[in-house]
């Protein structure tokens, strides 16, 4: 007997019982079920929810692998820096090495495992209680979560945050497809507000920096935004290519703009994510960056101001550092929590970029605001859609009125109406 028929038999045995959804999920996770639809009209399509989710995960795998290497690289680079040796990153020279991989895998994979195990256990429990099938929504969330947290986040904190994010962010609203807020960002926001010391500062971005703090071999690694927010931009030794390729400290998966860009193109090509949101979010970030650059060039902001460092940061570089690129490509484009209408997507995306850069500059506690901006716009997305739809309805009502007037033969009035509604 094969595994497939074993699973099928197990499912049959539990049919109608309380635990049925759990066994169904195991079965369909691995195989296509034997059942076919018997009645009613139905569409045969390959892009079901599971396939959609798997495509996004495929787009995330390169970022995850890069994150593993970068975690190791940043650790050894910080150790070198503590000994007075400044490292120059080179991809095959000192980046893709076994010691980087082993160190990275040892720290990143536990995050991935905790995220998936805890999240899926919560999903299974809710499916059994509510008596519906286990939903696929967590497959992507579970992969996003380890990529957007600092490398040394304690695993129990991650577990608590995942339980909170899945239950309060998603299940109370009715599960996958009904949530208002992006669950992965809800988890990130929970961690940020609950355990701020683990989410910011110059110790959390490099493995072991927290344990070694204060000792003789103390290491640290500040993010680029952190340097700028403290007005220490000139102390940074990162080149633009470091920022673009991602050899910089940061959350696990957010550093490599190149790989995120490739992932984004892949998602656009497979029509999973909306290019409108991505393009308009980039535009929004650039506009806000330009406004700040303009303000500093006109001399409105004194060089001694605490905002000067981030405001004078060239506008296009905002796209290369921090989590902006990652947020725009993988989080803002979430089809559930984003705007649904085409016009709405332009507005929604634009404000995500715009507000992200604004929070970056003005938030005194934490020089990054992408997750806050996306959560805020998640809340506004239905409102944006509502007004886009209303505007369209009004436009068509006017057109209808114009054609009625035209047919009615009131010539003067008809011309007038026609002119304004064409």
């Amino acid at each position, binding site marked *: 007997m094969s595994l497939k028929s074993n699973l099928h038999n197990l499912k049959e045995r539990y049919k109608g019982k309380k635990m049925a959804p759990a066994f169904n999920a195991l079965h369909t996770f691995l195989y296509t079920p034997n059942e076919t639809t018997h009645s009613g009209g139905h569409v045969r399509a390959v892009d079901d929810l599971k396939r959609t989710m798997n495509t996004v995960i495929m787009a995330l795998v390169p970022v995850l692998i890069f994150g593993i290497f970068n975690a190791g690289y940043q650790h050894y680079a910080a150790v070198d820096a503590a000994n007075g040796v400044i490292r120059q990153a080179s991809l095959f020279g000192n980046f893709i090495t076994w010691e980087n991989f082993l160190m990275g895998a040892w720290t990143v994979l536990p995050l991935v495992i905790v995220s998936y195990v805890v999240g899926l256990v919560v999903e299974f429990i809710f499916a059994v209680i509510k008596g519906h099938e286990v939903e696929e929504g967590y497959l992507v969330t579970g992969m996003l979560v380890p990529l957007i947290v600092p490398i040394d986040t*304690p695993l*129990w*904190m991650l577990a*608590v945050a995942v339980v909170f994010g899945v239950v*309060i962010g998603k299940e*109370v609203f009715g599960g996958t497809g009904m949530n208002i807020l992006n669950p992965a960002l809800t988890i990130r926001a*929970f961690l940020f*507000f*609950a*355990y*701020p*010391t*683990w989410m910011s500062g110059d110790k959390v971005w490099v493995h072991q920096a927290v344990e070694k703090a204060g000792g003789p071999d103390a290491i640290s690694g500040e993010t680029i935004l952190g340097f700028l927010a403290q007005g220490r931009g000139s102390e940074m030794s990162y080149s633009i290519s470091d920022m673009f390729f991602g050899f910089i400290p940061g959350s696990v998966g957010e550093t490599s703009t190149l790989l995120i860009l490739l992932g984004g193109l892949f998602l656009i090509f497979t029509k999973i994510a909306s290019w409108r949101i991505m393009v308009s979010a980039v535009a929004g970030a650039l506009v806000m960056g330009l406004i700040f650059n303009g303000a500093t060039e006109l001399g409105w902001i004194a060089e001694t101001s605490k905002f000067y460092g981030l405001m004078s940061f060239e506008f296009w570089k905002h796209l290369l550092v921090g989590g902006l690129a990652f947020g725009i490509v993988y989080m803002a484009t979430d089809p559930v929590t984003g705007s649904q209408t085409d016009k709405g997507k332009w507005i929604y995306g634009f404000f995500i970029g715009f507000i992200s850069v604004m929070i970056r500059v003005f938030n005194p506690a934490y020089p990054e605001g992408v997750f806050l901006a996306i959560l805020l716009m998640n809340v506004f997305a239905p409102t944006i859609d509502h007004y886009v739809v209303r505007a369209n309805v009004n436009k068509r009502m006017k057109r209808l009125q114009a054609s009625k007037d035209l047919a009615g033969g009131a010539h003067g009035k008809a011309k007038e109406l026609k002119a304004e509604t064409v």
Partner: protein
Amino acid sequence: MALLSKKDSRLILDPLADNNPITIQVLGICSALAITAELKASIVMALSVVFVLGLGNVVISLMRNIIPSKIRIIVQLVVVATLVIIVDQVLKAFAYELSKTLSVFIGLIITNCIIMGRFEAFALANGPWKSFLDGIGNSAGYGLILVIIGFFRELLGSGTLLGIKVLGDPIEKTGLYAIGYENNGFMLLSPMALIVVGIIIWVQRSRNKALIEEN
């Protein structure tokens, strides 16, 4: 013989659970979010509201036949304001630190929807004994939820209960902190209080299906 008749005891017991002013009528939420970061403050707030509503209901009920209905809101405000000022002054005299923690929220008991709600809905139409029981019941229902929220927020947010370090010392790393536990700063922020209220409502409604509205 029972101390209270069946009808009277319902006046006290109903607001504690199935007709709770916070979780069912969703009144008085503002103060439930604002002052519940510490258990002690929650308890004092709860007791203050018990005093104000219990006594206020009796006063309004005694005057119900002589209050002209056109100016009844003003009369109610005068009564509740008098009682709140008494509470405020007593706190300032005997528990100054606590009164600073609670700051304006003692004064804001005047605007607590539960109080005006009970005056309008009950005290104006019932005798003083019944009104007293109703006032005690509703304010106790309010206080119960406040204490529950305060308990969880202080325990998880600061690791203390009534100021006593029940989970160990976070700086010297004793007790739970020795194995890496940390306080949850989110618990001290008001949004988390709202989520705790939501979870209480969730638990209550899933235990008693009759409370779930049809829609």
